[in-house]
């Protein structure tokens, strides 16, 4: 395997991805990601000098609209989906300790 994923890398990716992996999952993730990257490295065979990255297949520009509210106030229905709500608001854990 050409790509060896270190413990530090997988921990860093875990922080970016906001995922907490168990010891076993972490080992599996290292192996999986290494294999995937070995496979993706195939793209390196192609000379892409001077080729612009294509994020969209059509030449689209930003689509603007007036900043006007068009939807209804659905606070109650939306809060029904909240894991926790109080007084018409989402409850989150304490962020300042």
């Amino acid at each position: 395997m050409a790509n060896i994923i270190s413990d530090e890398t997988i921990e860093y990716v875990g922080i970016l991805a906001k995922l907490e992996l168990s010891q076993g999952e972490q080992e599996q993730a290292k192996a999986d990601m290494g294999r995937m990257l070995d496979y993706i490295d195939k793209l390196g065979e192609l000379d892409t000098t001077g080729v612009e990255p294509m994020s969209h297949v059509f030449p689209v520009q930003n689509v603007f609209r007036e900043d006007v509210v068009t939807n209804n106030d659905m606070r109650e229905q939306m809060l029904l989906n909240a894991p926790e709500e109080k007084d018409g608001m989402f409850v989150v854990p304490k962020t300042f300790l």
Partner: protein
Amino acid sequence: MEVTDMTAVELSAAIRDGQVTAVEAAEEMLARIEERDGIYNCYVTVDREGALAQARAVQEKIDAGELTGPLAGVPVAIKDNLCTEGLLTTCASRMLENFVPTYTAEAVMNLRRAGAVILGKTNMDEFAMGSTTETSAYGVTRNPWNPAHVPGGSSGGSAAAVAAGECCFALGSDTGGSIRQPAAYCGMVGMKPTYGTVSRYGLIAYGSSLDQIGPLTKDVTDCAAVLEAISSYDKKDSTSVKRQDTDFTSALVEDVQGLRIGIPNDYLGEGLDAEVRAAVLQAAEELARSGAVVERFDLSLVEYAIPAYYTIAAAEASSNLERFDGIKYGYRTKEYTGLHNMYKKSRSEGFGEEVKRRIMLGSFVLSSGYYDAYYLKALRVKALIKKAFDEAFAKYDVILGPVAPTTAPRLGESLADPIKMYLGDIYTIAVNLAGLPGISLPCGKDRNGLPIGLQLIGDCFQEKKLIRAAYTYEKSRGPFGIGPGTEKQDGRTGGIPS
């Protein structure tokens, strides 16, 4: 003929003629679901009461002459990643086990306007990540042609529901083949339209630059009718394209005289099952006999489509799935210490293995230091792939090939080796990278009686050429059978021997 055996166009005509009512049609479908879904598990949610209420309302409009189209009163199943107001929408994930949307996806709204009756929500690979419907948090779906086999994925529940007669047609979504491949495995017709043709508003995003909603139907006529109904310009989707040519049913013409069809040599090489190859080439011969000009050519870059796709799709997935944080909706872990721990635990417990694998990969390829080498490199390769297709479409109207290298694998054989599973997407994935339309339709069966799919790919906005070619082929092929359970009863089965 039984309601459960009819196509959408046949059923809506029967309803218009008063042979059957929309309510009776919905009741028959619900009875079929009751009878069969215990075996196939096509649905995550069946909305019995809602369907009957819709059917009653639709019948009134049909009686009043307000609804006259080909989908009026026709029961439909919706993939569970399309938001439906007031109806559970899970993406087949524990993360959204109790999510009830406050709005309906635009494509589904278009179906409702056309009078279609929504029966429920179909099973899928979790967040549409998979090729077998085995990554669902709500159990596997079984292939109606043989329950020991997968229905394909990620729109496996939709394809299987149509094949089992548990709905008249269904909507799916296709990010790398997720409509076309399950359609092929289940012997149905599936279409991924040109990017931007169907609004993505209300489709829970996986790879936004690749996702497109499309129909899964019993035949090409229904495919054109459904696509015509769901296509629309939508301000709520900033990638929506204003098209004037969405009268797709006008392309249901039996004529391929002079149509230039190219078969990429790269699509017939190593890894392709011999029976699939033979059936696809026989279909090409059939089209040639009907007057098409069929040639082989080298498409090039085919082997680079999968690594480019998985880089881009994983990157977009890692970004799109950041919204699932256990605050506004979705799963929240029971015990946690502080905000970040809550995020991490909720996501780790709420997402399944394949979803986490892709989020991790996507986070990595977008991270500082690797962004250029992986993500931008993949976008450059995407530009080259698009160019290769542009060159091909300068010579050909339609590209013809297989949908998948094999017929439906047995349950439990695919997930152990992710890369091997990803390789199964080789013939479908480049279509999404280049934004092209592609249609899948049955062209034979293997020695075990499992359906084989034929894929036709068109240039951007050329769905009509695909529909014309597919319709002509379907006519010359003859009836295929609309599902295994109906074979004995109505004699519609057949297909060309493989």
